[in-house]
């Protein structure tokens, strides 16, 4: 639900409560005011009548006496403090011939040592007569408010929230890789100012961190590769000197360890670079051509291992992928399929616009296949590989939003990559040209 709608609903609720209470206040205020005015009028009228009485003339037909009652009362009936009071209630209206709401004001006077009680009355609007008026007017007020709030609820947020929306847009476009600090729109709203300041600080920090991470990766690469290169060079030179056989073995072992070290190192640096998204595709690459090239470069290895290669490569499969990454992806997958194959086995490469599928015969995996995507996870712990090839493959797929699955079915290792993120890679397994699930086919 939109923020402005929430505000509007709360505003309506508060308005209803205020209007209800306000209605009651207005009603009672009017009622009281009307009574007050009448009471004052009647007190004055009573005073006038008292003056007439004190004059002693006959005023019985005078207009003042129309609704007045004058009675002489004994001295002990005189109230001690108040000289007048009023009552309200329903009374008979002889002029109108029906019961009506009536206000009676009674005053007490002592005139020439005689005590009088003078009461006059008039008819005022009753509760039931006033109420519809009050309700009616509040109905109109409510309607007016509703219309205004509904309209302003649409228009005002557009104006007030525009800096927020612009900030949101800037943040959505923010890309660490471009290394450009964000430019947030000016605003006079304190909250947005605070938000912008916070975002600015946060993105600046992220940029800084990204920069130092990148620098670290590059420095580590530079600083470690040079000593490795020196050691390797020294070993190369040492190899050519006059050495004994046992020394040769030692050198060979050092060479092996060094090889591994340098490979681990360069792979980790590469993974970091992938995570930092340093490779973006400039233009689509033709995966068909690259796949053929990769297979060609491994052709002899495939033959050496007496592996049968089955391919189906669709022409002109273009995908948005950095050339180096495409190369890396294919090389890793193909070399993986060769390395973990059995002598006389099969490699099947199936490339279509929907995805790439590479399967190879091989021994059953020792660990769950999904774990083979983890870094330094190897199907065979004794093997010489460092177990990072598939981690690189997965990283590339994640980077490009490709969907990748690894399955081991009917003694085949199958890696399927779907180029469309909406299309799960497991679907690619269905259109294979070899029986994937023999049990399902009677």
């Amino acid at each position, binding site marked *: 639900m939109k923020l402005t709608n929430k505000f509007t609903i709360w505003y309506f609720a508060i308005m209803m409560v205020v209007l209800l209470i306000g209605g009651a206040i207005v009603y009672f205020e009017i009622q009281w005011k009307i009574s007050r005015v009448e009471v004052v009028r009647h007190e004055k009228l009573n005073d006038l009548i008292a003056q007439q009485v004190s004059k002693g003339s006959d005023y019985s037909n005078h207009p003042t006496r129309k609704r007045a009652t004058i009675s002489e009362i004994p001295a002990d009936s005189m109230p001690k403090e108040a000289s007048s009071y009023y009552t309200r209630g329903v009374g008979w209206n002889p002029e109108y011939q029906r019961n009506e709401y009536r206000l009676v004001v009674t005053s007490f006077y002592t005139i020439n040592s005689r005590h009088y009680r003078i009461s006059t009355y008039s008819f005022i609007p009753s509760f039931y007569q006033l109420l519809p008026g009050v309700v009616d007017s509040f109905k109109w007020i409510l309607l007016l408010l509703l219309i205004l709030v509904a309209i302003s609820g649409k228009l005002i947020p557009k104006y007030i929230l525009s800096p927020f929306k612009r900030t949101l847009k800037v943040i959505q476009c923010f890309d660490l890789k471009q290394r450009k600090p964000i430019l947030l729109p000016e605003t006079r709203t304190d909250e947005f100012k605070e938000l912008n300041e916070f975002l600015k600080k946060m993105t600046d920090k992220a940029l800084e961190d990204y920069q130092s991470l990148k620098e670290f990766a*590059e420095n580590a*690469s*530079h*600083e*470690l*590769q*040079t000593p*490795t*290169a*020196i*050691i*390797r*060079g*020294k*070993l*190369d*030179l040492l*190899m*050519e000197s006059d050495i004994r*056989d046992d020394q*040769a*073995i030692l*050198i*060979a072992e050092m*060479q*092996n360890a*060094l*090889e*591994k070290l*340098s*490979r681990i190192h*360069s*792979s980790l*640096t*590469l993974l970091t670079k992938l995570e930092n998204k340093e*490779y973006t595709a400039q233009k689509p690459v033709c995966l068909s051509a690259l796949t053929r090239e990769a297979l060609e*470069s491994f*052709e*002899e*290895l495939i033959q*050496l291992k007496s592996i049968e290669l089955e391919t189906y490569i669709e022409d002109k499969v273009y995908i948005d992928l950095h050339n*180096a990454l495409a190369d*890396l992806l294919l*090389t*890793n997958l193909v*070399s*993986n399929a*060769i*390395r973990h194959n059995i002598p006389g086995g099969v490699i099947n490469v199936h490339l279509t616009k929907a995805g790439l599928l590479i399967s190879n015969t091989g021994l059953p995996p020792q660990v769950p296949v999904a774990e083979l995507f983890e870094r330094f996870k190897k199907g065979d712990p004794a*093997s*010489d*590989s*460092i177990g*990072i*090839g598939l981690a690189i493959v997965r990283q590339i797929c994640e980077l490009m939003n490709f969907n990748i699955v690894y399955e081991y079915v009917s003694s085949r290792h199958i890696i399927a990559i779907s180029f469309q993120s909406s299309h799960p890679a497991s679907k690619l397994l269905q259109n294979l040209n070899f029986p994937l699930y023999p049990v399902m086919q009677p």
Partner: protein
Amino acid sequence: MKVLIIEDHQELARNIHDFLAKEGYICELSGNLETAREKLGLFQYDCILLDIGLPDGNGIHLLDLIRTEHKQSNVLIISARNALDDKIVGLDNGADDYLTKPFHLAELHARIRAVYRRKNLGGTHIVEFNEINLNTDTFEARIGNTTLDTTRKEFDLLLYFLVNKNRVLSRQSIAAHLWGDYTDNLANFDFVYQHVKNLRRKIANAGGTDYISTVYGLGYKFTMHKHTAETKNLDEAH
């Protein structure tokens, strides 16, 4: 061949120097941009090995100078930075090749020779040794008058051996040369063994001399002389 090594790491520079000196190359060292500029101002070189990360600046800046003043020099960038941008910028600015640290010295030598062949021998792409004749343009190998039916990798291997004659080539170095940096999954050096075996067989079948010998534990060596009895025995024991 006169080579200028612009590299700030003394040890690495010495490695290269020692290795190339054995080939009879005349090598000069320069540890920073300034001395490199001086040397380039005074002398001419056939090949310049250029490290990008130098203490007083980026080696890429030297490429302009080299391109204008040393047109006939080959430039090989050696860098620890495997950044693709560096590679592209370097090659765009007139470098002839790019090698990432850590490299095998034999590989460096092979690259130096390759760019030298491309640029200096006026279109002839022939590498010869006794009866062996390799055409690096057509990838044709001949033993005397017989054409050797080699695969591309075997050709590369033979060329690698020829360039690095009398040197022990480790299996790692050969694997890296043949399959590049992607040898992670192919650490199994059986492949190297297979290739060498096939190559030797083919040369022998064509009537060539078997110059390649196994060096116990380490790798292989292309020797100008026939095998001594000792290495021959070890060879067979492999």
